[in-house]
């Protein structure tokens, strides 16, 4: 090593230099991410252009929309007063008017608090599952009770109905506890099933009816008295509401008149604009005709040039040539005709539908902008436009196929001069028009603002009107229902007394009937060749049986209403909109989860028959579209149930959706079960745990954790699929959009409703998806 040869050794590092400007910050990011290669540049430019063209279409439409209007026509009036048809705007007023309907369907507005409360309580019920570490464990009991509570809140009815329904499960648990000590788990399971079925199928309805009857009888006199008093005072209240309504309607009519006055005032301001616009159309048509005439002349000249004069075949020409010459001659004749007719058409357009510039009415605009007057006066007069054309017509008349090419060129040049003059005239008119609009714009600002205020006032008035008519409708319903309830109360004793007599008649007829006919449920079930006496007897027997059923049902109904302790019952047909989607979606997923777990365990099971049953169930359900299952629920379920049963369509849909979702959930959970290492199963076995213990303590908690994204995805899919109930006559949000469009006020509205509904679904589904991602990360225990 020769140190002396080294001249210099740096002992400390040089400070780092700042990177070049294009390698830092935003510029670097843009260069790397957007413009890193020719393909990337192309993609960036293309996508920016796509984004621009979509946004430039949507944004002005959406933000230039109208929020206050009573109908689509009013929307268009307001839009016209602002943009005069130059661009379209959204009519968000339909959302303003109907959003509650899209959310709740036809649910009575005064009872909206019930579904809202049920929705809020849903989060309380979910808390033990979502935030198990932050809330007390006892809350689980609330979660278990929640489904019954929510159903009661939404559908109403006596307070003991949900309690009784829940008691089926309690009965099952009790039966299981007792039997498992006496006879082992298999018998206990069967016993539990039987206990629940017996309770729901046979005991629940009579006990509930009995309770209603008990409460009802004690209330009878009291209710009749209150009802009488109420029905006496109600007509006056309805009349009062009616008067209010009329006053409000008069107010609305007044406000509409004011609005129309503003519109007329605006038309008055724009009258000069409109006057000029009328001129445009005729002049533009005339211009087109002139251009057409010039083209015809040049075409004619071309033909004549080609044939060296009028097209004619040489004497020795072949047939083909003769035909060609003839065709050319005909075309030339047509062109000659065209020239004349186009020119005279242009003249009549101008003569009929245009006015001389001096007659253009621009007094107020020219006051604001004196240059308009100069523009107008510098425009060519009407005669100045028409006369050359008239001269041209005269010249065109002399045009034949013999006319020389030079003359034609001359004519064409003159036509083009006339057309240029007209074009200049139109342009001048355009300038005037623009100036008039500019002067009007200032004058219009104030009425436009007044119009907006007036429409806002109108909307407020209409909202008031809705409130009044709703309360009037409520009172009227109360009155009519009170009256019919009173009459049914008055006939209650009579109907109750008639029941034993009717039953006696049934027994009598049954004794008379031949033994083999006693189980028949319809006359057309009778075998061929039955005597007509027997047939009559059977039909009488069936009729009597039907009477008993209907009378006892009506008695039960009356007592049910009389003895109701709880909330006003709401018919399923009134439930709709986003609420219906939520009810079906949430009920479907909650109910399908336990069923899905059982099916997944069954499909993983080593028990051959159980396994095959589950496989067949899952594959059949998954292989057929939901819409077919929904039709099954609406059309076929009545066939599969005992004769005479008929239950709620929403409930049927929920059952079908539950079965459908269960099959999908089962597949998701099966994936989770299969993903667990075999060691987990073997470990559970080596601890000596029974099958259910190992599932409950070891396998399912892990498998469920893995399955969470899949379950949430199934839920999102199910939630979106709830829109399909539209096809069996329920009013989901899309169905309601159709119903709203059926209203004459909103006929023709599409995009506003679609966008609103789409946004609702998007917000809900997107946040669910994000939440599942978050949950997945939170529950992740291993490091990957």
């Amino acid at each position, binding site marked *: 090593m020769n140190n002396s040869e080294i001249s210099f050794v740096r002992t400390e590092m040089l400070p780092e230099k700042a990177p070049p400007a294009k390698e830092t910050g935003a510029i670097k990011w843009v260069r790397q991410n957007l413009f890193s290669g020719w393909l990337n540049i192309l993609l960036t430019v293309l996508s920016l252009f796509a984004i621009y063209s979509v946004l430039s279409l949507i944004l002005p439409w959406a933000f230039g929309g109208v929020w206050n209007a009573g109908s689509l026509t009013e929307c268009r009036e307001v839009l016209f007063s602002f943009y005069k048809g130059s661009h379209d705007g959204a009519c968000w007023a339909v959302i303003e008017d109907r959003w509650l309907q899209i959310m709740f369907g036809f649910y009575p507005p005064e009872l909206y608090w019930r579904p809202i409360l049920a929705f809020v309580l849903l989060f309380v019920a979910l808390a033990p599952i979502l935030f198990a570490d932050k809330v007390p464990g006892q809350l689980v009991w609330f979660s278990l009770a929640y489904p019954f509570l929510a159903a009661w809140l939404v559908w109403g009815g006596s307070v003991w109905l949900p309690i009784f329904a829940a008691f089926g499960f309690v009965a099952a648990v009790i039966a299981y506890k007792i039997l498992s000590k006496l006879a082992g788990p298999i*018998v206990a399971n069967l016993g539990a099933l039987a206990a629940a079925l017996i309770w729901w199928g046979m005991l629940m309805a009579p006990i509930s009816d009995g309770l209603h009857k008990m409460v009802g009888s004690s209330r009878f006199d009291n209710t009749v008295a209150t009802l009488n008093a109420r029905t006496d005072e109600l007509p006056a209240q309805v009349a009062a509401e009616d008067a209010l309504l009329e006053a409000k309607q008069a107010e609305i009519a007044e406000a509409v008149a004011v609005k129309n006055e503003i519109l007329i005032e605006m038309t008055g301001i724009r009258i000069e604009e409109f006057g000029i616009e009328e001129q445009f159309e005729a002049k533009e048509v005339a211009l087109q005709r002139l251009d057409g005439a010039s083209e015809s002349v040049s075409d004619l000249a071309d033909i004549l040039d080609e044939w060296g004069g009028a097209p004619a075949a040489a004497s020795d020409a072949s047939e083909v040539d003769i035909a060609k010459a003839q065709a050319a001659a005909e075309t030339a004749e047509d062109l000659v005709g065209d020239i004349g007719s186009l020119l005279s058409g242009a003249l009549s357009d101008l003569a009929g539908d245009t006015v001389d510039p001096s007659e253009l009415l621009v007094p107020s605009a020219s006051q604001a902008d004196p240059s308009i007057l100069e523009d107008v006066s510098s425009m060519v007069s009407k005669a100045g436009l028409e006369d050359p054309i008239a001269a041209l017509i005269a010249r065109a008349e002399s045009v034949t196929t013999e006319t020389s090419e030079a003359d034609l060129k001359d004519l064409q040049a003159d036509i083009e001069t006339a057309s240029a003059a007209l074009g200049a005239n139109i342009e001048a008119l355009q300038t005037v028009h623009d100036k008039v609009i500019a002067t009007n714009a200032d004058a219009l600002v104030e009425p436009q603002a007044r119009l907006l205020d007036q429409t806002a006032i109108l909307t407020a008035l209409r909202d008031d009107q809705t409130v009044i008519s709703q309360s009037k409708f409520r009172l009227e319903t109360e009155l009519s229902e009170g009256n019919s309830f009173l009459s049914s109360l008055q006939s209650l004793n009579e109907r109750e007394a008639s029941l034993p007599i009717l039953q006696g008649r049934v027994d009598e007829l049954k004794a008379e009937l031949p033994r083999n006919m006693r189980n028949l449920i*319809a006359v*057309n079930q009778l075998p061929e060749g039955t005597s007509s006496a027997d047939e009559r007897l059977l039909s009488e027997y069936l009729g009597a049986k039907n009477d008993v059923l209907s009378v006892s049902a009506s008695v039960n109904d009356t007592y049910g209403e009389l003895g109701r302790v709880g909330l006003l019952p709401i018919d399923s047909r009134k439930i709709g909109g986003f609420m219906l989607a939520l009810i079906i979606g949430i009920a479907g997923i909650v109910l399908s989860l336990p069923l899905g777990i059982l099916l997944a365990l069954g499909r993983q099971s080593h028990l051959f028959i159980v396994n095959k049953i589950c496989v067949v169930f899952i594959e059949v359900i998954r292989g057929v579209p939901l819409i077919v299952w929904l039709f099954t629920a609406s059309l076929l379920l009545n066939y599969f149930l005992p004769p005479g049963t008929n239950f709620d369509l929403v409930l049927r849909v929920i059952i079908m959706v539950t079965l459908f979702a269960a099959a999908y959930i089962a597949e998701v959970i099966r994936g989770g079960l299969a993903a667990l290492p075999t060691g987990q199963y073997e470990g559970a076995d080596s601890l000596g745990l029974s099958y259910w213990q190992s599932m409950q303590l070891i396998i399912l908690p892990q498998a469920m954790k893995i399955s969470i994204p899949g379950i949430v995805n199934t839920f999102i899919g199910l939630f979106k699929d709830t829109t399909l109930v539209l096809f069996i006559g329920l009013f989901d949000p899309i169905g309601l959009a159709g119903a709203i469009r059926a209203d004459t006020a909103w006929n023709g509205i599409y995009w506003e409703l*679609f966008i609103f509904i789409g946004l609702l679904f998007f917000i809900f589904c997107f946040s669910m998806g994000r939440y599942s991602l978050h949950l997945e990360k939170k529950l992740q225990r291993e490091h990957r």
Partner: protein
Amino acid sequence: MTTLTDPPKGNFRLSQLIYDTRYRSITIQVIAMILVLLGIFWLVNNTIQNLSALGKDFDFGFLSQPAGYDINQRLVEYTSQSSHGRAAIVGILNTLLIAFLGCILATILGVVVGVLRLSKNWVVSRMMAVYVEGFRNVPLLLWIIAIFALMTEGMAQPRDFKVGGDASMILGDSVAVTNRGVYVPGVILENGLFGSAVLNWLLILAVLIASIVCIRILSRRADHIQESTGVRPTTWYQQLALLIVPVGLVLILMGAQLQFPYLKGFNFTDGIHLRNSLIALWLALSLYTGAFIAEIVRSGILAISKGQSEAAAALGMRPSRTMNLVILPQAMRVIIPPLISQFLNLTKNSSLAIAVGYMDVRSTLGGITINQTGRELEGILLMALFYLVLSLVISGVMNVYNNRTQLQER
């Protein structure tokens, strides 16, 4: 040493059915079987009772009765005098058509979007994310109805296509997008070899398939040569010729001619008329399913570990060859099973055709036929059976493919 003790061989007692694990599983299965059979019996019995009370029977004879309704889109001969069975077949073919078209477009869309979503270009990947999330989180039914409304409300009327009108045909005057549907050029065979058009087209299809088989053989041979000599013969022009020439020859032989749609009166004639219902359903199904497929493709590509592409780069492979030879073959293994299940979903979702009046099997067999004959039970049963068989066939094909491409693990 311990010795294995056999379980006691005492007399069989009845209680062993419950307490002995050897017999308990049999007991459980028998009970489950009995419960299921009881349930089925209950349902069937109820059905029989209800049917007899209504005076109906269970009979498929209605399938041969004349249908009496028209179907505006049909792939096979059908008139209103044809039978309900024929109508069902027309519906089935329409379902298969929309499913086939939808699967193709959805796959193309999904692959393109899935790859673009992984692009380093921020604008492009964001735009694709918006597309995917937008379509995944809004009900398909809404998209179908919205696109249908766009077609019927937003497009020009055929008469606007007249000279001087506001609208004009696109793609060199060959395609007209109107509010009554899209008109595209059609191909007619002037002198077909067979009397029926279907047979002629089948012949062309057969020639096409034969060409494709030949191309496969050719590329196999090229593979062989490459493996034995290391040099791959250039075959692309041979392949192209094989693809085009035979079909072209047959077409010329049959006198194939392009037929352009043109305006006649107030409507277009000639060419092929794609109805709004078909277009709306097709686009909506493809865009919706394409969003799901894009996610599948993306996750499939992301599932291939980075080491694979790094190793390929270390071998000196170009990015495009890395994609083709290393990433995609492995990603396909992850992508194919969920892809097929998306195809299944698309096929089942095509039953939403009812929203726009497209005459698929649900609208013919499961709709008008049921309404006219009152045979809900038989109609829905047949329809469910059709969808079930279709699903099972598709998933069967998927299983075969899956088994063939599955990684052979020890």
